[in-house]
């Protein structure tokens, strides 16, 4: 056995790094009830969202698959599904999708309960029982091959591509080398690097998948930005990115892809799905921080690593988000929100290799129970399901 961490082994063999109860609404109409149930039980988190009804086709399908995927994530020992009763994506479908994991599972329907107050009461009783049962479980030693991390950067500046992303790439390579998984997403921010990524594919089929999904994302963005009234909104690079010194989306992309290290890509998979293979993976999704983390958590990622040059405090419910900044000034200002100061490479105190090792060790520590700063402060704003136009 190589390196290990201490996690919670689930019925289906998956290993969680947290032991929480997820309260998941199947539709926006039951979001507040889900939130209130979670507020009643320390150790419960809710996944309030604005969708689940009045959607069709792929858009509804992605919502359904993503909510099921969140429920299946091994960081949750139990799930309370909260439905309204007349939504298009039924709470029964949601519960059926989660059930094969064998975890604790209950469903509350507001219209069956009578009103929202009664639904909160019933849901709270379910969650209370689950939380107590979950508290009996102990952490066990697990191999790094059981880990799946998500890679996601936001509030990028020039130090992201210069230091934080390359250092995270070193940590990602270490996990992949030991049989674990790492997920790159943010296709909007890989535009211009597809030919380089395709060279890293494990075979021709994966190379073609990489080229296809990134080109499709660029076409989608071109259609969407064509009629924008504001010239700056047509750009794929934000004002903050420009201020930080990035001059083109290709420059930003090259820095972005650095966080996937040098491992070969073994699979490209769709948003809402879980990958079939282990190793370095590409999830087909856009660049919004929340949509990325949500897709990665739905795929089964237990931890997300998040380089941020300019600094963001955001986190995800039930899935630790480890913040890394390559900007020493940002760390100085935002050290209450940022876990790792990779700015020490800029100031010459550490090498990129040492930084990569430090990030890797922090991933193992967080996997074994150390709370990330976003968790301690209760940041959970990254839950956001992607929409199909």
């Amino acid at each position: 056995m190589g390196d290990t961490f201490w996690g919670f082994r689930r019925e289906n063999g998956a290993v969680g790094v947290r032991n929480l109860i997820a309260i998941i609404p199947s539709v926006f109409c039951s979001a507040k009830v889900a939130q209130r149930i979670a507020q009643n039980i320390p150790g419960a988190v809710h996944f309030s969202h604005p969708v689940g009804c009045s959607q069709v086709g792929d858009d509804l399908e992605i919502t359904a698959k993503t909510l099921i995927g969140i429920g299946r994530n091994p960081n949750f020992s139990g799930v309370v599904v909260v439905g309204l009763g007349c939504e298009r994506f039924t709470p029964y479908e949601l519960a059926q999708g989660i059930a094969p994991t064998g975890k604790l599972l209950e469903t509350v329907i507001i219209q069956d309960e009578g009103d929202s107050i009664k639904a909160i009461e019933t849901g709270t009783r379910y969650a209370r029982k689950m939380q107590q049962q979950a508290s009996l479980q102990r952490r066990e030693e697990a191999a790094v091959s059981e880990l799946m991390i998500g890679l996601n950067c936001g509030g990028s500046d020039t130090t992201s591509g210069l230091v934080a992303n390359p250092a995270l790439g070193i940590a990602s390579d270490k996990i992949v080398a030991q049989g674990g998984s790492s997920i790159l997403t943010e296709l909007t921010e890989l535009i211009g690097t597809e030919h380089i990524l395709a060279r890293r594919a494990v075979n021709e089929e994966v190379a073609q998948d990489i080229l296809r999904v990134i080109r499709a994302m660029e076409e989608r963005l071109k259609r969407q930005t064509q009629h924008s009234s504001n010239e700056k909104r047509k750009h794929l690079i934000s004002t903050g990115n420009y201020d930080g010194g990035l001059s083109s989306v290709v420059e930003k992309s090259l820095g972005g892809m650095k966080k996937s290290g040098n491992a070969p890509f073994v699979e490209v998979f769709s948003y809402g799905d879980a990958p079939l293979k282990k190793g370095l993976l590409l999830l087909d999704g856009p660049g919004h921080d929340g949509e990325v983390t949500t897709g990665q958590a739905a795929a089964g990622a237990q931890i997300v690593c998040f380089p941020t040059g300019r600094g963001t405090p955001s986190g995800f419910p039930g899935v630790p988000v480890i913040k890394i900044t390559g900007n020493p000034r940002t760390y100085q200002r935002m050290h209450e929100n940022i876990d790792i100061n990779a700015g020490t490479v800029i100031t010459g105190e550490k090498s990129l290799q040492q930084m990569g090792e430090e990030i890797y060790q922090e991933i193992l520590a967080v996997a074994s129970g150390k709370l990330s700063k976003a968790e301690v402060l209760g940041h959970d704003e990254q839950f956001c399901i992607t929409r199909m136009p």
Partner: protein
Amino acid sequence: MSEIELASLAAGKTALILDQKDNVAVALTDLVTGDTCLVAEDSGKKYEVVLVEDIPFGHKFALTNLEQDEAVLKYGEEIGRMKRALKKGGWIHSHNMYCDRGMK
């Protein structure tokens, strides 16, 4: 190490080149016109560039004179092309570099 190298290092006026093919360096501190900046390649090779414009932390400057439409290389790849010619030590950003990818 030369006097200028030592002085540049002591003042923290440094910049990083990410790939040997690159024709730009990234400032690791705020630099101003007339500064002599010590530029370090990954290989360990170091040399000085005199800046002809202010270069904020994290921004790029030219390592050689660049022609109009010449490719700007960072990470060993093309990140855009010059809208107009630029002197060595000049600031490169969206005002004088174009890249159609992601803009239309």
